[in-house]
Structure formats: C-alpha cells, structure tokens
C-alpha cells in the first residue's frame, strides 16, 4: 500500500511535467495544425539557456527568467515566423518534416556547442525529503514540481476561460475562419499560443532538469511521452492533455513496478493504441465530424 502511494506520488510529479509539454502540443495543433515533433527538444533546450546565462555570470533566478524569455523568443516567436509561417498553407506533412529536422538541429547544436555530457542543474528548493507516511517519501523538489506545474496549469485555464484574450484564443482554436469573421485578431492569437507553448516548455525544463539533469538527449523520451499523453487525453482539449500527462506518468511507474521494467514504455503505448481503437477523440476530447 505504501509502495502504491509512493509510486502514485512519483508518477504524478513526473506526469505534471509531461502535462506541461503535452498542453503546448495540443495548443499548437488546435490553432495552427502544427504537430510539433521537436516538442521534447523544446523542453530540453531552455535548461541550457539558463546554464549559459549562469556561465555569463547572471545569478540563478535571473538566469531562469532569461531562459523563459529566450525560450519564448526563439522557440516561440522565431519558431512561429521562421519555421511554421512559410509552411502554414502547405498542409501538415511539410510542417511535420520541418519540426523533425528542427528537433535534430536543436539536439545536435546543444551537443556540439555546449556539451555531450549531462549537466547538474541547480534547484530552487533545498535537496530535502519529506516523509508523508512511514515508507512514503517525497522530495521538496517533487513537491515544487507538482505545485509549480499545478499553478501554471491553473493559471493557463484561468487565462483561457476568464480573460478576453483567452476566450479569443479558444475561439481561434475551435474555428479560425469564424473567429476571423467575429473580429478576433487570429494572427496575434496564433502567435500567443506559440509563446505560451514555449513558456510552458521552459517551465517544464526548469522543473525537470534539477531532478533528471540537463542533457542534449533528454528530449527524445520527453517528446515521445508528451505526444502519447496528448493523444491519449484528447488532442483537441487542454484538459485532455493534462489528464493524459498525469495518467501516463502514473501508468509508467505502476507498469515498471507491477508489470515489467523492461516493457514499462510499452504500457502507455498500448493505451494509446486502445484509445485510438475505441475512443479516437481521446479520453476527454471532443468528437469531430466525419469528413469523407
């Protein structure tokens, strides 16, 4: 029983990070039909922005801010205009290819320019453990991850539902053509989603790197899992991505403990296939009209 609790907590903490990455995925998909295969690298890179900033003598907290801003500038705005912009009207495939290539570029750049080795990434919170129950321990870092991730997600939900800009973004996500007719500045809304995606990725990066170290290849697994989480939860719903992320995080841990460590990765993937077979819109997704 305590084992199960321990696994659930660890799974939720990891899952919260997956959720941050998965939300960005669904946002980009909704507003611009972008399937971002570089999403994992988007989570890997900001940690290195912070490391570079610290090497230049910028103090830790300021370096984190720099990382988030750099991420929004390069992985948000520049990505929107230099990569996605020219391909937006050419269908999904060129964009898929381009983001695959972008992922390779980001990964190789970090490796060749910074280092191929894992880097220690400092944490905001002291490296201490809290014992919840006998046998159930959680580290402060994990609590931090959960709290920050939940605040970020809550803030995002509030922004989308409670502000004018947020509602305009949702209108854009649901139907850009109608949104444009209603006077929503669709172009700006699309840019906002890219900025939010980059911001969320940077948050995920800052949260994950102290625990799992910063390394150029971290994006491979993270990207794959965020992708799976987004599909499982529902590609067209932000709350679907959140649920998907948490679910995959927990499932991965339970599978490793109770099924097989060798096949732990397989369980979320099998879930993915089952979802596509029986509930293709995702667990919490909206059903879309049959066309053809």
């Amino acid at each position, binding site marked *: 029983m305590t084992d199960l609790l321990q696994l659930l907590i660890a799974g939720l903490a990891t899952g919260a990070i997956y959720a941050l990455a998965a939300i960005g995925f669904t946002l980009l998909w909704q507003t611009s039909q972008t399937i971002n295969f570089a999403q994992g690298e988007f989570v890997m890179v900001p940690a290195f922005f912070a490391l570079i900033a610290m090497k230049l003598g910028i103090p830790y907290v300021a370096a984190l801010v720099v990382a988030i801003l750099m991420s929004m500038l390069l992985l948000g705005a520049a990505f929107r205009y230099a990569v996605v912009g020219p391909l937006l009207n050419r269908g999904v495939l060129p964009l898929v290819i381009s983001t695959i290539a972008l992922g390779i570029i980001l990964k190789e750049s970090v490796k060749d320019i910074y280092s191929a080795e894992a880097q220690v990434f400092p944490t905001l919170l002291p490296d201490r453990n809290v014992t919840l129950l006998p046998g159930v321990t959680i580290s402060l870092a994990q609590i931090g991850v959960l709290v920050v991730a939940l605040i970020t997600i809550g803030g995002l939900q509030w922004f989308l539902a409670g502000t004018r800009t947020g509602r305009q973004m949702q209108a854009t996500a649901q139907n850009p053509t109608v949104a444009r007719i209603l006077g929503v500045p669709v172009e700006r809304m699309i840019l906002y989603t890219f900025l939010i995606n980059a911001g969320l990725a940077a948050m995920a990066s800052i949260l994950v790197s102290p625990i799992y170290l910063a390394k150029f290849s971290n994006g491979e697994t993270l990207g794959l899992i965020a992708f799976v989480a987004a599909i499982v939860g529902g590609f067209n719903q932000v709350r679907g991505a959140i649920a998907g992320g948490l679910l995959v995080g927990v499932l991965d841990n339970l599978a490793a403990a109770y099924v097989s460590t060798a096949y732990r990765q397989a369980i979320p993937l099998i879930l993915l296939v089952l979802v596509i077979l029986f509930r293709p819109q995702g667990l919490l997704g909206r059903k879309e009209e*049959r*066309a053809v």
Partner: protein
Amino acid sequence: MTARLEVRDLSKAFGGVAAVQGVSFDVRDGEILGVIGPNGSGKSTLFNCILGQLLPSAGTVALDGSDVTGLRPSTLNRLGVSRTFQLLQVFPRLTVRENLILAGQEHRGSRLGRLFGARDAGLGPEADRMLEFFRLGALAHEQAGSLSYGQQKLLDAAMAFMSGSRLVLLDEPAGGVNPTMLAGLRDRLAEINRVGATFVVIEHNMEFVMSLCTRLIVLAEGRIIAEGSPAEVRTNAAVIEAYLGH
C-alpha cells in the same frame, strides 16, 4: 413512374443547430429535379446527407427501393449515384483525360484486374467521346489545373457522367460560368437527360433552373416550403416570402 430516390424525414443537426429538419421527397425516374432556396437553407447539407458525406441525424434514404442511409460516398457511387460539388473539384495535377478515366475506372472490372490490365482501364475511347461531347477534345492532355474556370466546371460535370450513373446530383453547376458556356452546359445536360439519366440540381441561377428543371422543391431554414413545376413555384407566396424576407 417509379421513384429512383426516396428521402424520408431526413434531419441533420450540427451541435444544437438544425440544418435540415424532416425533409421528405422523391426523385422520379427521368426527371430533372431542381432544389432551390436562399443561402443557408440547407441545400448542400441535404446533398451531403443523401450522399454519405455526412451522417444524417435522423431519417432514411432509399435508392431504387433499398435503404442506403449512411453508406459511404464511394459505395453509393458504385451503386450508380454521381455528384458534383459546389466548389470546383477536379484533380489539377492529372490531365483532363486522366480526370475522366479516373472518374470511370472504379466501375470497370475488378480491382485486381485493374492492377494487371490496361493502363486506361479500357476507358480511353469513352473518355475521348466524353471530351468531344463536352467540347473539351482539344484540351485532353492539358493538366486540369491549367484550364479556365468555365472549362474546369465543364470537366467537373463531365466526370459525373463517366461512370454511367443514372442518378446525378449537381451542386451549383452554373456557378461562375459565363453565359455562352452556360447555354452549352444546359444543352449537354438536357441531352444526357434525354438518353436516360435522372438529375437533381441545386442552383442559384433562376433562369438556368427554370429552363432546365422539370420540377422544383424549395428549401428554407431546413424545411421544404414548396414543391411543383417551375411555373407553380414562381408564383408561390411562401417562396416569395422566403426569398424576399431575408
């Protein structure tokens, strides 16, 4: 006269909005039935539900007496129903002749036979005949995308007849076609109708509809508000109200 197509109580709603509500009508063998109505009255949705592009929320569609509700468009097409779309739909990177052959090939022989058999699925002569009939012969080997709008519209219509379908649903065949070509198109359609094809035509161009169709139904807000010969419909008070009321 028997009914080729029977539509009964057909409804379609998108979310909470009802686009088509309880529409019933028959299409009789050999007629040219016009479907008119103001913009947004549900004409294209009706077509899409009949042809399996959309699943109707309620109601049935029967072809030659057998139920075909919800069958996929390709199945319906192989059962002998063709259509055109409101917006231009040809394959721009295929040649004009290839477009026509494609339109007929799925009705020829078995799928495996088509893989091993003739490259044109034996449709070459027929495609050439159709090209001549629609006065497109000179353009046979041009890419369809390089044709003028009117020519593409002709090709679009011609493709609907390559399968030898006896029931053809045309969604705004006259839209954007210049008056000279329009007369030609009307003559072609009338001629095909004489040799045995039944048509359902959605059209905004009243002159075209009145001179081509033998019978009309009028849709407004998803319901049939009038039905009858062109002359009857023209003087129907409800129709005038529906058109002018907007």
